[in-house]
């Protein structure tokens, strides 16, 4: 244990995802030794992200205004919505430059064992977006693992009465992984070869 403020910092860093106690200690001592200007930039970035960034009221993606950049862009096709689990998946798909439609960020995947059911995700918001008939294709780009597949199955069944074209990314994506780790070429190919879901 260290003196109060240093230990405080280690504790706070240790609560971040993927940061164990050892890494927390290493980062804390790095910050202690760092140039005050560098630490000031980091502090500012942290403060700004909480002050300025919120979630798009339409799609749930991170946004600096009420709506995100993609929802505000009139060149993006409003007839196609790509459903993803997290905002970082939007970033991964945007990198492929394959997709010109819009997104819907669920905020996770259905995981009964973790207590996450359909009502805990932004599924009601998705249904509202589909209600006026503008959207004709729904691309289900949840993670290519079990929970992502189950979420896609649930959504496909839910929207079945709406007679949309419902597609799932091609299985060029090796199952078991997280979408964010797919490289651009693989993900791009998965988009081109997406298959029709029929449940």
């Amino acid at each position: 244990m260290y003196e109060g403020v240093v230990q405080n910092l280690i504790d706070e860093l240790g609560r971040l995802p993927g940061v164990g106690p050892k890494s927390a200690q290493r980062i804390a001592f790095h910050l202690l030794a760092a140039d005050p200007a560098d630490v000031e930039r980091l502090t500012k970035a942290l403060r700004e992200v909480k002050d300025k960034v919120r979630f798009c009221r339409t799609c749930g993606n991170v946004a600096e205004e009420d709506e995100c950049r993609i929802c505000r862009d009139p060149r993006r096709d409003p007839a196609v919505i790509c459903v993803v689990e997290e905002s970082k998946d939007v970033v991964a798909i945007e990198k492929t430059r394959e997709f010109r439609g819009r997104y819907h960020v669920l905020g996770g995947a259905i995981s009964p064992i973790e207590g996450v059911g359909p009502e805990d995700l932004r599924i009601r918001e998705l249904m509202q977006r589909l209600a006026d008939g503008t959207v004709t294709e729904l691309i289900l780009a949840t993670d290519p693992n079990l929970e992502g597949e189950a979420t896609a199955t649930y959504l496909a069944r839910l929207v079945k009465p709406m007679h949309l074209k419902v597609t799932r990314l091609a299985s060029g994506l090796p199952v078991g992984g997280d979408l964010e780790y797919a490289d651009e070429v693989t993900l791009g190919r998965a988009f081109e070869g997406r298959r029709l879901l029929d449940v």
Partner: protein
Amino acid sequence: MRDNAGVSLYRDEGIVLRTQKLGEADRIVTVLTRRTGRIRAAAKGVRKTKSRFGARLEPFTHVDLQFYERRSLDLITQAETLRPYGEPLVTDYPRYTAGTAMLETAEKLTAEEKEPALRQFLLLLGGLRTLADGAHDPRLVLDAYLLRSLSVAGWAPALDECVACGSRNRLRAFAIAAGGAMCGNCRRPGAATPAPPTLELMLALLRGDWEHADGSQPRHRAECSGLVAAYLQWHLEHGIRSLRHVEREAAPITTIDEEPG
């Protein structure tokens, strides 16, 4: 402190119960194995889409594993799929949610890590196989599994005789805390009063009489599910979280309120 000469490799087959994210791209995988019982182990790089493990460490997979024994969390070094039960389940939401409740129950009923639990392993394997076959209502498969796994854990409900007096006649009630059916004379206030075919269905599920179970009526199945769920939650301190998400039809009609203690 033990030195590294003590570490060793071991092999076992198991069913993946649950995975949790660990650090950047790894996972902690919980497996119910045939010989060793329940094991929590780390799998490196498994979340990368190019991982050599692929889908072999996804929940529901019956898998042959090699572990590297370590002081804290053992490491999974090899995995070969025996049967990927997740594939047929994931395209059918009611079956998927029933299966998830089975996995969570198996984890909760094997409280001690690395304590052999062969009967729980065999029950789960059989349950998943039946669920994946698709020949029976997933709700019946789940309830049969729950009743049997509770029995293996030492909490078999009495279903063909009164838990209080042993009478086999006029079984009118189901008393969760007392551990099963009760006759009209022994019935306590607050005990559930299911329809007689519901108790018969529960008994058929416990014994594996599928012919009887498949012929049951929806309302008795619903009532049976309600009683089994209440019985399970009573015995497992922290309950089964995924049970709430299992897709079921109408809720049971009878009250399942129970006298405390």
